């Protein structure tokens, strides 16, 4: 029997690693990976609590929704990254510092 606290601990560690990546990286792709890690931490929590919801299946269904949301986010973010690369020839968010004109 795996306790809920164990799942919450793994998820908290994952969330903090994602937070570190978002704050410290100089590369839009790695920042995106950090966001995915944080989303996965949230999904792990949903799934862990969903074990105790047999009739309504709230946790598992919303975990599925969160996965779909993550896929949509990634598609749009990658389109934006490619456009930014075409315009600035870099994907370091710190060096993208002027508006359209």
């Amino acid at each position, binding site marked *: *029997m*795996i306790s*809920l*606290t*164990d799942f*919450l*601990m*793994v998820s*908290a*560690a*994952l*969330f*903090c*690693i994602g*937070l*570190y*990546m978002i*704050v*410290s990286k100089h*590369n839009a*792709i*790695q920042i*995106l*990976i950090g966001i*995915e*890690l944080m989303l*996965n931490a949230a*999904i*792990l929590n949903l*799934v862990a609590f*969903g*074990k*105790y919801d*047999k*009739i*309504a*299946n709230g*946790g*598992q*269904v919303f*975990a*599925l*929704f969160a*996965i*779909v*949301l*993550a*896929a*949509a986010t990634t*598609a*749009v973010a*990658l*389109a*934006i990254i*490619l456009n930014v*690369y075409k315009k600035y*020839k*870099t*994907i*370091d968010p710190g060096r993208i510092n002027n508006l359209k004109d």
Partner: protein
Amino acid sequence: MSLAQALFYLMGFIVVASALFVASTKNLVRSIFMFFITLFALAGLYVLALADFVAITQVVIYVGGILVLILFAFMLSGKETLNVLQQQKSKFISLNKLPAIVLAVLFFIVMVNVIGKINAGNLGWIKQVISAKAEIKPNDEMINNIGINLMTRYLLPFEAISILLLTALVGAAHLARKEGRA
């Protein structure tokens, strides 16, 4: 310690260790491929939480879809990225990463405190479920139930997410088109 528990600790260790490697390595390609391992181990954790369908979806969508997208973005913008990475090859933990590390560690300490305080196994509704023996058992089949719930109880969020997916699809295609051809 049962087999499930041993597997849980193994999977949890793989998840956290590979995520740490993803966060710490300078090599973007290695970090993307270690992210692959993180996602697979997370799918294993979902199986151990008795959510097989979510685990399969994770493998199909994350590993099959999102990771391929990330690899595409890396390859289409890769050369410059590698140059940037070559320049900042320096100490193991450089000083400008220190605030980020402090932030993450402090946040982790706060989260651990909160998790210790709420003691999730003793929450009211979870105790109720356990005493009624109504939690999901390893030999239950939940996929029928998930399908029925998706089409009845969660129909509105399901439709909302489909509209959002369509919007994201159109938006991504619009953003990624060639300039000039309106």
